[in-house]
């Protein structure tokens, strides 16, 4: 018979092993991508897959030589940070009014906003392409910032709305009693309280912008092309390309992975924020 203590220990062990198994399962594709990126093209294509091989950094060097990685990376950074900043600027006041001055139409408006996410992007490709052409914005970072802001806005408003809903109105009223203006109320009281939630919203928006591939491929050509467009240039129907494609994918996810790692604490706190009511 196991004592209570022993059985608890066993439980922890089983749960721990299970968590590790899931984590490894999720991490495996990334690990495999990294491994493939260090192989030569022939090793990468070999069946059965090779686990022991002589690693090479040649793929990375070739990518830098052929395409210039940093230009694409810089475009990705400016576009995703730009769209996130612009999105937050619009989403915070919108969520504020919906959370603290709710009317009978608020719920409907929120649902309607979310429903725009159900529209398949390719359905509006030609009109948006023509608009961008009219305004001379094809292949510019500005057009991607605007599009990303618009497509992510419903999610940002929803997330921030749920965080704001958890904040007692009394705190804001107290601030107002003390003579705080609307701006002061937002900047000095509301934002500091919901810091965790806002941080995780921002991170989610950054990840969504960083990974977006449909609009970035269709609206850019050479000047404003971000990392997703760079990845698309390394796949090929003729010839071997797996190793280079893995290398370029590793380079494309590395910055956001590192960024996510650093802000992990904020993210977890933000995601569990309001989970227990």
């Amino acid at each position, binding site marked *: 018979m196991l004592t209570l203590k022993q059985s608890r220990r066993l439980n922890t062990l089983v749960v721990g092993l299970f968590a590790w198994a899931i984590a490894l399962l999720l991490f495996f594709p990334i690990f495999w991508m990294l491994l493939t990126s260090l192989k030569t*093209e*022939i090793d990468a*294509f*070999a*069946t059965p897959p090779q686990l022991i091989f002589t690693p090479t950094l040649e793929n990375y060097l070739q990518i830098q030589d*052929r*395409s210039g990685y940093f230009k694409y990376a810089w475009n990705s950074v400016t576009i995703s940070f730009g769209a996130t900043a612009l999105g937050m600027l619009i989403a915070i006041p919108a969520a504020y009014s919906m959370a603290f001055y709710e009317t009978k139409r608020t719920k409907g408006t929120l649902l309607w906003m979310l429903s725009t996410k159900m529209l398949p992007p390719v359905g509006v*490709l*030609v009109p948006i*392409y*023509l608009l961008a*052409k009219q305004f001379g914005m*094809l*292949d510019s970072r500005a057009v991607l910032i605007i599009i990303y802001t618009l497509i992510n806005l419903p999610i940002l408003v929803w997330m921030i709305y749920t965080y704001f809903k958890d904040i007692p109105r009394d705190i804001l009223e107290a601030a107002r009693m003390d003579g705080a203006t609307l701006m002061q109320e937002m900047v000095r009281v509301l934002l500091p309280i919901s810091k965790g939630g806002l941080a995780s919203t921002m991170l989610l928006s950054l990840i969504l912008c960083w990974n977006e591939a449909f609009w970035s*491929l*269709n609206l850019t*050509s*050479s*000047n404003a*092309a971000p990392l997703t*467009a760079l990845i*698309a*240039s*390394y*796949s*090929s*129907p*003729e*010839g*071997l*390309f797996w190793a280079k494609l893995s290398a370029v994918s590793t380079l494309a996810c590395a910055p956001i992975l590192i960024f996510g790692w650093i802000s992990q604490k904020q993210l977890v706190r933000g995601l569990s924020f309001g989970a227990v009511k």
Partner: protein
Amino acid sequence: MKALNLLLGTACMASIALAQAAETLTVATVNNADMIRMQRLSKTFEQQNPGIKLNWVVLEENVLRQRLTTDIATQGGQFDVLTIGMYEASLWGDKGWLAPMKDLPEDYDLDDVFRSVREGLSVDGTLYALPFYAESSMTYYRTDLFEQAGLDMPEHPTWTQIAEFAEKLHKPGEDQYGICLRGKAGWGENMALVTTVANAFGARWFDEKWQPEFDGPEWTKAANFYVDLLSKYGPPGASSNGFNENLALFNSGKCAMWVDATVAGSFVTDTSQSKVADKVGFTFAPQEDTDKGSAWLYSWALAIPTSSQQKDAAKQFAAWATSKDYAKLVAETDGVANVPPGTRESTYNDEYMAAAPFAKIALESLKQADPASPSAKPVPYVGIQLVTIPEFQAIGTQVGKMFAAALTGQMPVEQMLTAVQQSTTREMKRAGYPK
């Protein structure tokens, strides 16, 4: 006054500098080895033409096709030079979306370009794109395995003979498969091969009145033959094999035979990527009841959209990249076997023929290919492994999926052909054929 003059002068110079800097060409191309080489060597072009700077947009074939279609159909003007295939060249040229390739430099020597390739890129006698490289299809086989089994590959094999060889050489226990063929669904994947097989059996996509012919005896025979051959003597999971997968299988020594693009010749003989580089034989693509349309014809070519603002500079680049001088440059820097194949008579000189053992068969196949007459019976369309109508991409992919389903055994061949006949008839009616 002096200051004003100085200011005007500076402004003038600045505008000249701007005008010069303005000649930036955006070149859209696919990620194939020959195009990547062109990108690398284009620095020579920029040195020779200091007024022109090149910006490259390299994309995977399907992504590129979609991207270019959006841009050209909306006259977006994002690109100055497009890399397109024969299918797009004729359709877009006909619509007036491409600038005609007239007034080429004197030393370009258009007559040196193969007639079949030139005609494939022209509409009513007007050339709309300059061919960068061209390919046909041929049979690759393992000379060592043939010798061991005491078999002889004829110069013009029939599909029936190929099936007999495949049966004798199929040893799945030793990881050796009789034949590798395309099975992955797609109008440019399995349907390219299936259509050449069907052509060889005397079948055609449409009769003179644009009626699909999948319920005819020729297609029944061809489809049964293809499914039977590949499922009996092909590698496991053949329905997901395209060009790349088969190339990898052949290079690792698992296929006794392979019928595919001539462009693979340089890959299978390259010792750095092929384990069987010195054991490969080459012969013509198999025929059966006819040799008409038994080998395909495809070309990647450079075209200039009418929406480009810099057509002259773009033409200068397109002409340079498809010229004899470019071929010479490649031969000097990367070796003669890497010269883009299939477009010019002058490429096939003695030096090239000696360096590329597959060149003779590839050259003959290219010369014999006739997109205007792809089948034993008359057809209303142009194209050997494809039908040059805008609806073909959708129809071809749909038919390709059904052939892949038949290959995996999800559907018997007869039932598949009935379904293909129905869906193709419906699509063609919807598109308003016969026109």
